[in-house]
């Protein structure tokens, strides 16, 4: 079941022997040395080719790399519902306003706790259904064990709710504990249905068992009704049953709406107790061992109670029943004494306490940290401890406890849980909110995890981006956009690539993509992705090259619209303002050719001088090629022809411009 206990080692240094070992099937660590590497939620393990013994006999090694998952429960289909549903409750709890104080705050927190428990219960019920429907016995067993784990979680949570959140005082405390026991020892309901459904209930073989359980659980009204059935059928014991029924009816209990004080209750209870005692002394029930045993139970007689071990099924039931009939107004502070002795009496030295017993005992001792520690060791997931600790922290019960590493315990456990979610291929979105509510290390953890999410579609990338942008994680936004832009370039989707680099405000990459656009233009003689380039808007300013791309495209558009004068000045400004890269000047000058050849004069004399200047700058800077490559020679020839044609066109245009400008001035 994973090795999450390694994380536990941080809470308390354990000796090596305490660490549970996990055997990886197929790997032989005796013969080969192992190597491993930690991941955020997983560990990679494989055999190396090094033999442990000096003798280099060739033993075939295991060819696999194993991924060891830290938190296996994250992968359960049913538990996913628990994670998702409790996520909503968790976020709601973090938003409970701090100003809320006193009663309203407490009732809110109790409500939250109950919501968590109802989610656990729903999950447990579904797991139970799955276990029943399981096709093979092995998986059936596995689901059943999950059911018992969930059941234990709910049991612990409920007790913590009573003791730490509700903080029930003497009196109501026992009522809560009774409810707790009734909720978790619930076989009685099916037994009751069974007995009442039979022809003659009082002759049913489990009749007295049922009555005893009802008394053990303090359900005296129901027990009374049962006894009346017995009275009806056997007149001999009718009198005894009536007396017992009367004792049950008159037992003083604290009712929520009642205004009586604890002292009043204690007095009444004492009186009632003495009455029971009297009946026992008088041997009123001597002829009916069942009724006599019931009477002893109601007197809180430990021996009589322990005789019902089977029906009590566990020590905490024993504890609550014992308190009910011997000390109903037990104070919270005295609980641990009763709990310890009940545990000892119930186990009777025959068996040692199990982890669950230790956890409950720690709760009765009001040792929250011990509860959390024991739970962390015993349970195979972080969900329980993370959520319980967070809730208790909201009850302001954990402030004093700081760990000597990282942050406080609440944050430590939440981080562990959220990391587990991030290791899962789908649950990472839930993890984000948990990191958000870890003030100290949440942000860095999120930054580390979010970059590692595989982005197979743009839609998923957008979701990740939204998470980063909402949290002003500019570095991550940039890197995600860059990944997407790179991907788009690789797929020859230049428009997409440009969009992503604009979103990331990544000037360098925008320049790179713009160059690709220009190169494609030079090769094909036309632009692709006009829908984007024509609509760049202010984004054009991101990089010089992008500005040039946009402006150059604008030149083509203006030219296409036959606005030659505008086109000409735009073209010239691209060169004189140095926006156009040098390598592109020849293309620009060639683009000027048709404008120079138009019937009317488009470039003024001054503009023509500037064009000539550009051409000379370009040609003078050119190194002389020494190569004798024929291809090179041909290229050079074309280049030379081009330059000569340009020179000629420029000269002619200059002549026409001077004449025209001269005549305009003259007129």
């Amino acid at each position, binding site marked *: 079941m994973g090795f999450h206990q390694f994380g536990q080692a941080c809470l308390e240094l354990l000796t090596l022997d305490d660490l549970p070992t996990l055997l990886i099937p197929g790997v032989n660590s005796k013969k080969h040395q192992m190597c491993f590497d930690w991941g955020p939620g997983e560990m990679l393990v494989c055999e190396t080719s090094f033999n442990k013994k000096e003798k280099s006999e060739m033993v075939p090694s295991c060819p696999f790399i194993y991924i060891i998952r830290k938190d296996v429960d994250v992968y359960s289909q049913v538990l996913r519902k628990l994670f*998702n549903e409790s996520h909503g409750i968790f976020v709601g709890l973090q938003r409970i306003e701090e100003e809320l104080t006193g009663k309203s705050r407490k009732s809110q927190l109790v409500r939250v706790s109950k919501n968590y428990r109802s989610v656990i219960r729903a999950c447990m019920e579904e797991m139970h259904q799955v276990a029943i429907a399981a096709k093979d016995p092995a998986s059936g067993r596995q689901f059943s064990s999950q059911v018992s784990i969930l059941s234990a979680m709910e049991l612990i949570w409920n007790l913590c709710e009573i003791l730490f959140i509700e903080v029930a005082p003497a009196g109501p405390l026992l009522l809560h504990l009774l409810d707790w026991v009734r909720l978790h020892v619930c076989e009685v309901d099916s037994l009751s249905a069974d007995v009442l459904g039979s022809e003659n209930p009082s002759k049913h073989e489990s009749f007295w068992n049922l009555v005893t359980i009802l008394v053990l659980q303090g359900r005296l009204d129901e027990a009374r009704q049962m006894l009346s059935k017995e009275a009806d059928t056997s007149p001999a014991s009718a009198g005894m049953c009536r007396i017992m029924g009367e004792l049950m009816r008159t037992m003083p209990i604290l009712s929520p709406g009642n205004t009586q004080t604890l002292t009043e209750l204690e007095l009444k209870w004492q009186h009632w107790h003495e009455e029971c005692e009297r009946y026992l002394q008088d041997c009123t029930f001597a002829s009916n061992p069942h009724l006599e045993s019931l009477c002893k139970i109601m007197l809180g007689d430990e021996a009589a109670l322990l005789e019902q071990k089977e029906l009590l099924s566990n020590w905490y039931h024993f504890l609550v029943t014992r308190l009910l009939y011997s000390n109903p107004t037990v104070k919270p502070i005295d609980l641990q004494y009763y709990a310890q002795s009940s545990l000892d009496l119930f186990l009777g030295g025959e068996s040692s306490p199990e982890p669950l017993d230790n956890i409950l005992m720690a709760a009765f001792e009001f040792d929250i940290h011990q509860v959390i520690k024991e739970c962390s060791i015993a349970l195979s997931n972080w969900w329980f401890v993370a959520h319980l600790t967070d809730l208790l922290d909201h009850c302001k019960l954990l402030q004093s406890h700081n760990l000597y590493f990282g942050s406080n315990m609440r944050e430590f456990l939440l981080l562990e849980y959220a990391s587990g979610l991030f290791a899962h291929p789908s649950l990472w979105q839930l993890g984000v909110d948990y990191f958000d509510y870890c003030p100290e290390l949440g942000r860095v953890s999120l930054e580390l995890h979010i970059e590692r999410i595989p982005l197979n579609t743009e*839609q998923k990338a957008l*979701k990740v981006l939204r998470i980063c942008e909402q949290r002003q994680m500019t570095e991550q936004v940039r890197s995600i956009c860059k990944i997407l832009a790179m991907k788009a370039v690789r*797929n020859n989707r230049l428009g997409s690539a440009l969009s992503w680099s604009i979103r990331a405000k990544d000037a360098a990459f925008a320049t790179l993509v713009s160059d690709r656009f220009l190169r494609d233009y030079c090769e094909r003689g036309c632009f692709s992705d006009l*829908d984007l380039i024509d609509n760049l808007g202010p984004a054009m300013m991101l990089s010089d090259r992008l500005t040039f791309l946009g402006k150059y495209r604008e030149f083509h558009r203006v030219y296409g619209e036959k606005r030659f004068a505008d086109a000409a000045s735009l073209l010239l400004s691209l060169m004189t303002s140095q926006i156009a890269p040098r390598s592109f000047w020849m293309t620009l000058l060639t683009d000027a050719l048709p404008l120079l050849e138009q019937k009317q004069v488009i470039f003024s004399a001054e503009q023509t001088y500037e064009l000539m200047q550009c051409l000379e700058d370009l040609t003078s800077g050119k190194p002389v090629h020494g190569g004798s490559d024929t291809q090179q020679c041909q290229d050079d020839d074309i280049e030379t022809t081009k330059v000569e044609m340009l020179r000629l066109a420029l000269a002619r245009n200059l002549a026409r411009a001077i004449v025209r400008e001269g005549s305009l001035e003259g007129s």
Partner: protein
Amino acid sequence: MEEIYAKFVSQKISKTRWRPLPPGSLQTAETFATGSWDNEENYVALWSIGDFGNLDSDGGFEGDHQLLCDIRHHGDIMDLQFFDQERIVTASSTGCVTVFLHHPNNQTLSVNQQWTTAHYHTGPGSPSYSSAPCTGIVCNNPEIVTVGEDGRINLFRADHKEAVRTIDNADSSTLHAVTFLRTPEILTVNSIGQLKIWDFRQQGNEPSQILSLTGDRVPLHCVDRHPNQQHVVATGGQDGMLSIWDVRQGTMPVSLLKAHEAEMWEVHFHPSNPDHLFTCSEDGSLWHWDASTDVPEKSLLFHQGGRTSAFLSHSISNQANVHQSVISSWLSTDPAKDRIEITSLLPSRTLSVNSLDVLGPCLVCGTDAEAIYVTRHLFS
């Protein structure tokens, strides 16, 4: 909105769609399909909200929608549409378009037809073949139109093995959604805020019309056409804005309504009651927009959990002269009438609501929190 039922299904839901009712049917919707995404294994599933003899007595939370059948789907389900009563078309993140057939007799789904390389960056057959996610589908029996991250538009016919028509490089950016305008015209939205209208009668790779949001080039994620007035189109964008367009005039939206706080993933006019519109968003909200004229004392109000607060809207009244006998309430530009009542349908904020669908009084939506919400009493 009292009765909205949630069910957690252990997979992130990317799409939810009601099965269409047979023409002339008086039944209410009772079957819907869902698609999942971002799972190790993704599924197309069919669910029923029909009565199962009240399996559960306490409030009926359990058993309100039951799984009928499901089938593995290769890749994330990016879009899902009913082709007809029995057939479902899905778009996959692997670029594959699949038609699934539902067999009601034994409640199973099977693959009926598949175009595996509908969307790709570098062509099939080339060694560097790389697929591109298919992002949107629209069906109009017998035609299926698909769009993808590769900027390609495909026109398939259910009975043809090959695409009937393909427009390569239809868009330089990612196409996010597609809808039929009037046959044979389709309308696409892309990631740089443009709407393009394509006419399959025309040859060539150029759209017949481009409309766009000005300035910021905010990506558009969803589009829906008014069921009766084919020139009225609603789109939702990355900034959560709802835009209403009249494709007959202008190249800009008629109105821009500030809506959600993050990407609007879907927008749907109510098919038979188009004064009602529904939107859902990455911010985890699901809204019902009511622009009907018969709402007493109308004002632009935002209801949530009984509280009412004023809700701001920025409406651009740039096309004031729509001379029509019937003016859609969505194009109304009279400030006094330009009021829409908005209701939030989900009880509490959750993770992204990825998809929704409405049919009659029924609504279904699916979330990244792995829950499917259903209500059968939309207008009560």
